[in-house]
């Protein structure tokens, strides 16, 4: 029974709760049981909050019994990426430097989850400060891909992708700075959306790159993703970059699931060469399915996307080098006295703590960013990168003049093996080539499963991109494609993943 329960969609769980066929406590307990059974294999969580989640579930059940007006998702449990602050729950950002830190405040996204009555199961693993594409840069060890435990679950949000792909949670919050929601979704056969920049509050999201970061929903279906999107999106006075406008009707769009009359644009620069054959094949089939459902397809040209990766790896480290300066051992987190120094100065403690607390990838990016912002180099690096950013936004504008949404494979390959790219940062970075342009331009993007690659039987993802503030288009197109694919597959893709509770598949 409990296994069946965790395999339901969030929408179905919400329905079971509202008809009182299942209680929030039962539902939450089922997911905690699943975690107890499989997370030793998957390692999605850095912290599981059994008591807290059950207490929240009990409160929802009591309110329902009292006849209170509840949010539709009240009682549906959720996992939160460990880069959003949670009052009273540890928040490590996957880093040693924040080991043991318990924030005194909730991120706005977390506040909205609590207000909706969604029990928070725990905090999910990530590459340290969201820097990476595999979770291998987590200071607490990598998460694993439920489809193949020797492979990466994507990154940085591999904890959030694997937690829903392994049925430990129906929903999760991710964050996406260059693809950290979409690429993990693609390689685990799940759905994830990076909303329009500014449409989900960043307050309490520990900043990697402030102008690129965006929190978003992760789920197993397009409708579930929309339901969670609607909970967390909306204006927040605590975030100056927050958009003060109504949230697009994402749930309605997902329910409509209609692409007839829409024009979809295939981005020339993000297909073909460099993309794994199976990824490309499933992508082409998906585009054909959309045409069958009434969409018109065009090819669009975005020539400046070729420079996106280079611009991204100047802007991100620059902002990160400044954002991560606050981790100095003075007020919270790890404090390491310098070795062999009597009576060390504050600066010596800062240096020693940062040396011990940050991993190699974080240090690499801090050094890159510090260099790029240095006097005499600023114009050549940060300044030029901002110009490229403008050109990429212009490419999007032109493309959206001829297409309602744009399409590409989400990632060039299926999940690679743990360790495979760890010593080749450039190879790791290149995996984000298709997702990065959306962050640079601030436009919304979704990844949903397009099938399994013929070569390796692993999930492939398709990315849908829409103009800024038109996030609802992602859901209209995504839900239509999902319906067409489901018809072809006969059952959700994840039913073909190994059932981990029967023992590890190695």
């Amino acid at each position: 029974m409990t296994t069946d329960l965790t395999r339901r969609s969030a929408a179905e769980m919400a329905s079971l709760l509202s008809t009182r066929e299942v209680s929030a406590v039962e539902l939450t307990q089922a997911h905690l049981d699943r975690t107890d059974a499989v997370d030793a294999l998957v390692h999605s969580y850095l912290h599981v909050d059994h008591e807290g989640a059950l207490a929240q579930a009990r409160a929802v059940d009591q309110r329902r019994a009292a006849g209170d007006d509840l949010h539709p998702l009240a009682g549906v449990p959720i996992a939160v990426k460990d880069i959003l602050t949670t009052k009273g729950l540890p928040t490590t950002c996957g880093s040693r430097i924040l080991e043991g830190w318990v924030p005194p405040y909730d991120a706005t996204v977390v506040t909205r989850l609590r207000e909706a009555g969604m029990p928070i199961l725990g905090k999910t693993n990530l590459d340290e400060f969201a820097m990476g594409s595999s979770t291998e840069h987590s200071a607490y060890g990598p998460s694993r891909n439920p489809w193949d435990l020797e492979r990466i679950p994507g990154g940085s949000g591999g904890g959030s992708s694997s937690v829903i792909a392994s049925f430990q949670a129906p929903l999760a919050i991710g964050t996406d700075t260059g693809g950290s929601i979409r690429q993990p979704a693609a390689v685990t056969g799940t759905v994830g959306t990076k909303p329009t920049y500014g449409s989900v509050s960043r307050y309490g999201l520990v900043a990697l790159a402030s102008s690129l970061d965006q929190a978003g929903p992760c789920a197993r279906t397009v409708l579930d993703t929309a339901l969670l999107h609607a909970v967390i999106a909306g204006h927040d006075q605590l975030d100056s970059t927050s958009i003060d406008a109504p949230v697009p009707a994402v749930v309605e769009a997902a329910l409509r699931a209609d692409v007839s009359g829409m024009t979809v644009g295939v981005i020339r620069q993000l297909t073909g060469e460099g993309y794994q054959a199976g990824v490309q094949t499933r992508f082409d089939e998906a585009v054909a399915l959309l045409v069958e459902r009434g969409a018109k397809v065009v090819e669009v040209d975005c020539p400046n996307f070729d420079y996106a990766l280079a611009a991204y790896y100047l802007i991100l480290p620059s902002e990160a080098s400044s954002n991560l300066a606050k981790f100095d051992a003075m007020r919270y987190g790890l404090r390491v006295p310098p070795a062999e120094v009597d009576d060390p100065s504050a600066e010596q403690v800062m240096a020693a703590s940062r040396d011990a607390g940050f991993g190699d990838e974080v240090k690499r990016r801090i050094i890159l960013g510090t260099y790029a912002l240095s006097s005499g180099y600023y114009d050549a690096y940060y300044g030029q990168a901002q110009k490229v950013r403008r050109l990429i936004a212009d490419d999007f504008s032109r493309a959206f003049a001829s297409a309602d949404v744009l399409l590409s494979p989400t990632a060039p390959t299926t999940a690679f093996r743990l360790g495979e790219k760890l010593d080749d940062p450039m190879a790791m970075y290149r995996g984000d080539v298709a997702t990065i342009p959306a962050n640079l331009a601030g436009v919304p993007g979704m990844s949903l499963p397009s099938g399994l690659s013929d070569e390796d039987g692993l999930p492939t993802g398709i990315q849908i991109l829409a103009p800024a503030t038109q996030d609802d288009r992602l859901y209209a197109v995504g839900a239509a494609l999902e319906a067409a694919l489901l018809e072809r597959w006969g059952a959700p893709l994840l039913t073909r993943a190994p059932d981990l509770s029967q023992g590890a598949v190695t």
Partner: protein
Amino acid sequence: MTTHATREPETLMGYDEALTHFDPVMGLEVHVELGTATKMFCGCSTTFGAAPNTQTCPVCLGLPGALPVVNEIGVESAIRIGLALNCEIATWCRFARKNYFYPDMPKNFQTSQYDEPIAYEGYLDVDLDDGTTFRVPIERAHMEEDTGKSLHVGGATGRIQGADHSLVDYNRAGIPLIEIVTKPITGAGERAPEVARAYATALRDLLKALDVSDVKMEQGSMRADVNLSLRPRAADAQDQDAVPLGTRTETKNVNSFRSVERAVRHEVMRHGAILHGGGSILQETRHWHEDTGLTTSGREKSDAEDYRYFPEPDLVPVAPTRELVEALRATLPEPPAERRKRLLADWGYSDLEMRDVQNAGVVELIEATVSAGGSPAGARKWWMGEPSRRANGQAQDVASYAAEVGLTPALVAELEGLVTGGRLNDQLARQVMDGVLDGEGTPTAVADARGLELVKDDGALEAAVDAVIAANEGVADKVRDGKLQAAGALIGLVMKQMKGQADAARAREMILAKLGQG
């Protein structure tokens, strides 16, 4: 002779001698804490003197995940300051991050403005002691946040060197600051120290009139950094502007107007001695020592110091509409220098009297007293008297002292009215003022309660006069012989007999008449 960078010369050069060789060039950077109720980027209170770390939140503590939101009142104050300094106001500008590590700076970057200040290209006309006006060119005024405050414990000096440990109070972190930077001030010549003081004073008066800050140098809500360099004096004064600027030093945190003047003077003498001795100036920050009147070396300010400025991505640009700017312009008070000229004419004070009341900080009180019906001379006399003495004794400014004891301009006008109306003389009025300051009530109430009133009954006065003359025939004879100044002694005795409650002028009149001198 080889040139070598020098910090401390053997002896200072005489000021006048330094000026015969060199032309001083100054630059002043003044930080002003705005008097907004909340901090620049969060809702924390800005009240001075609260217990350490009680006015903090995730934002001003720089906790992971926290984000800033701009204080609109802070921006409006910055625009008003810019307008009052005759600056252009940016139509679009951004905040920037100034990156450097310091324990009292929670984020290890300061949210400031860099190449896009809110206000730029202005000037401030300042009055010098001789009544002439000097125009100080303003480069920019920009918005930023204050840092926390370090307290170094266990050392002898309170400085970080030798301290046992340090404590940080983040109450100050995030308090809005406006930094006002002058362009190089040239042409002041030997009056450079006076110009520096006059500028700081005029800026204080302006900011006070704008009501944007309490501008208290002693509490640190206004802090001045003084840059100074010397360049060789040109043979022909007309060519002076063509002489390149010398290497400057920056003297930090000069905390009184007098110290601004002294610091400039000291640095002129120190630079002069070094340069004249064939040395060169090391570009560095200097610490000002109020007690000795000297500066000592701070940290070297090399070009290697790189703040890696970039636009603050967590804030949106500030783009004040022209309507807002014009609306704020309409709220500007009368410029202090113009106001001073107007009051001088209206009140008929001498320059010296005017400067005294300005220095005493009672101009507004006098103005209000005159509005309440007092005379300018009377208002000056009463405010500069006992209230100023008592305020000084308690190291308070007169206005706050008066507010504390309930002495309003209207009450001062009332007191003066009792004198001009003939009920009190000055001596009795001083007793009444004491009573008011001691909290005994209004002047009329105090006079009533203490039974203070001039005796208007000529009969009683005449009896006293007769008695005094009879008892002091020797003195009376002197007056009869034409030594009129001797009458003073008799008047004093009459007043004593009348217990002060007599009109001394009437007593004199009566004495002189009776002794044949009327």
